[in-house]
């Protein structure tokens, strides 16, 4: 074993002197002929994979690096974030993360989370989809106002979801909390489409999904979009009111909606390893800005059903800092209570 560990040590030494030398060169020179690993936390074929495979060649063109897409499924994307967060800080591991489960996983202390989003360097945001509340046609409700009125009469509303903090369920939970409704969240469905089937069947009052899914599910009226859970309208469903337009949100209730909307703002974001030299982070941010604001790429993406909603790395970083920067411990435990236990 001795000679091997000596070899490894030597390799490390050589490696670290190389990185030291690299820091002297400009970041642009560094990336030429390097290999960037663009990591996604899901298997091939899904939305994240498709985004990554769309961006990889373009990033390669802009940086001169070879960009390889790597699928590392597991733990709802959390495992791969852990790996990138603890990788070598050379700026060659870049990951497209799903902001909602990552942020909520961190807030709720999910068992596998071993990163702090506020410590990760953000390189930009590829897309962010607003969340929309749908009512089942079978439930008889056609607006959020009806639902709130029924809730005030003591009726229990139910919403279907997957896990507790991966999108549909937590959106429903913050709506219930902000409007002070009596709710039962039915979780455990295998995918959001299966959860939607429960809503179509009338097993539950409704469910929350991204605006894209909301548009698809509401095609034939078996599910009715009743409110966007945020301040801005959805581009895909321009006629659907925001929750603030649909009903009077109590003053202290607005916190919950704003909190959820700011998490949505992280969106499908690009991160790299903490400790990466600043010049490389800046360089990658610039490169992604170039790629994601290229009108040709935006068009190709839209044609493939992958809408682009770019935000700069600095902006996403600011959003993350805002979410995690001023959360006092008692608010944090209140959030955990609402998301994890109150409505189950």
């Amino acid at each position, binding site marked *: 074993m001795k000679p091997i560990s000596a070899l490894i040590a030597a390799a490390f030494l050589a490696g670290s002197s190389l990185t030291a030398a690299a820091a002297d060169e400009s970041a642009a020179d560094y990336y030429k002929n390097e290999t960037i690993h663009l990591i996604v936390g899901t298997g091939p074929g899904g939305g994240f994979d498709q985004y990554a495979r769309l961006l990889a060649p373009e990033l390669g063109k802009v940086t001169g690096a070879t960009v390889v897409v790597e699928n590392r499924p*597991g733990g709802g994307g959390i495992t791969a974030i852990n790996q990138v967060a603890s990788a070598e800080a050379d700026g060659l591991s870049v990951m497209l993360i799903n902001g909602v489960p990552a942020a909520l996983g961190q807030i709720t202390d999910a068992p596998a989370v071993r990163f702090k989003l506020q410590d990760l360097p953000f390189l930009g945001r590829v897309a962010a989809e607003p969340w929309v509340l749908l009512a089942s046609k079978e439930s008889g409700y056609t607006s959020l106002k009806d639902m709130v009125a029924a809730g005030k009469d003591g009726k229990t509303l139910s919403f279907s979801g997957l896990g507790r903090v991966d999108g549909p369920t937590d959106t429903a939970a913050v709506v219930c909390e902000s409007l002070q409704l009596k709710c039962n969240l039915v979780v455990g469905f*295998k995918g959001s489409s299966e959860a939607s089937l429960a809503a179509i069947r009338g097993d539950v009052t409704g469910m929350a999904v991204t605006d894209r899914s909301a548009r698809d599910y509401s095609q034939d009226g078996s599910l009715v979009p009743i409110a966007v859970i945020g301040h801005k309208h959805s581009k895909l469903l321009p006629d659907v009111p925001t929750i603030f337009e649909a009903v009077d949100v109590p003053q202290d209730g607005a916190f919950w909606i704003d909190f959820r909307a700011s998490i949505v703002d992280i969106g499908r974001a690009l991160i790299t390893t903490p400790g990466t030299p600043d010049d490389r982070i800046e360089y990658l941010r610039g490169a992604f800005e170039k790629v994601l604001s290229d009108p040709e790429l935006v068009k190709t993406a839209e044609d493939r059903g992958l809408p682009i909603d770019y935000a700069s790395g600095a902006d996403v970083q600011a959003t993350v800092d805002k979410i995690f920067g001023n959360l006092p411990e008692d608010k944090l435990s209140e959030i955990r209570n609402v998301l994890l236990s109150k409505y189950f």
Partner: protein
Amino acid sequence: MWDALLSAGSQTLQPGVVWAVVCALPVGLLFGLLPGLSGLTAMAVLIPFVYGMDGFAGLAFLLTAHAVVSTGGSVTAILLGIPGSPPNAATVVDGVPLRNAGFGGTAVGAALTASAVGGVFGALVLLVLLPVLRPVILMFGPPETFLLSLMGLTFLAAVGAGSPAKGLFAGAFGIFISFIGYEPVSGVPRYWFDYDYLLDGLRLIPLALGLFAIPELVALASGGSLEQSKGDLPGKQLFDGCKAVFSRMGLVLRSSAIGSIIGIIPGVGGETAPFVAYAAARQSDKNPERYGTGIIEGVIAPEASNNAKEGGALVPTLVFGVPGSSGMALLLGAFLVLGLQPGPNFLRDHLDIGLGLVLILAVVNVLAAGLMLALTPLLARVVNVPPRLLVPFLLTLALLGAYSTENNMQDVLFTFVFGAVGLACVRFGFNRAALLLGFVLGPAVERYLEIALNIYGPAFIVRPICLILIALMVIALAAPKLTARLRRRPA
């Protein structure tokens, strides 16, 4: 409908579509033949190729590759004793004893013919159900899915040979290891020992490969060689196999129907179809004890059902955009790539595409079986390869398959762990198929019971379909005893 059918027919015969099918067919069969590479992997590998294809040709391309995987896998299951893809695991139970008795060719012939008939049956079911699909699927909610999964579990003791007690024990062990990872409803992690990999639970492909491939490879490596077909020429045996299928049409149709139904219901998981079909065949047979000793019915039932289930699985995918199997989930992704949105309005707007997919499904199942039948005499020569060459090659392939599903070395590690479990099962006579069935169905039972209780309370049990399912379960459990008693009485 007829107009749409005609237009679907003419679409299917377009050169682009024919070309797509011709390209995808061998790829799908190859993924089936190679252990560990599943339909899911085939689809994931092929998806990038559909960019830029014409919409329908792209779908035909993916569907073809996916639909024929289990046809290819049946040959590996019988000749090598290693399921080519997880749904072929049930075929091993009777396929291997048949091969050892020198009837490998007959078993392959029967498996391929049953696959073709099952595939066509599945396509027909899809065709017939297309207009009335919505209500059919809506009838099966969480309570019904729970009871269907439970029904699958009642077959545990009936899968394969050996003592029912040991079958139950193996099944219980399968259920137990399915508990590892996040609990499906509460999200509480169980038995994960601070080891991230376990949070998602154990994976199906390493489990299936470990249980079936490793013991077979160990046996080969430790001096055993594959039994040679003796007596009849392979060609004659293959033909006998085909004949055997057509003289048991009742069994074939019933198994296909089981496959279709399980495919249609989104929650149950297509992997269970062949096991349930096998167990149902055994339960309804006059001499259930023959099963597992190498009888042709034990090959026909699972193979008919696993090709039929793909037709069934297309149903919820097209009508609700809710995939009926993991492969269909990827197909759904491809629909979106091609700018088509499956869902409530899909069949209204694109009935010709829906019908075209039905046609493709029927045609490729027959083509795949034909191609495999033609190739089998060649493939059967694999048994002449000396083990010292064959074992390393197959082991590499199997581990590559385990690795490629998630690009994760830990899957390879667990293939060996389950390999040890598989060896122990073989040594002590525990039923590996029951273990696998328990593993697949355990989480479904747990998940849908909790959801059903949450929505309806305990009263879900008196929903009409639930009552029917309970009655069926009781009959299935009691039937062997009852028929035995009835037979004894006149004597």
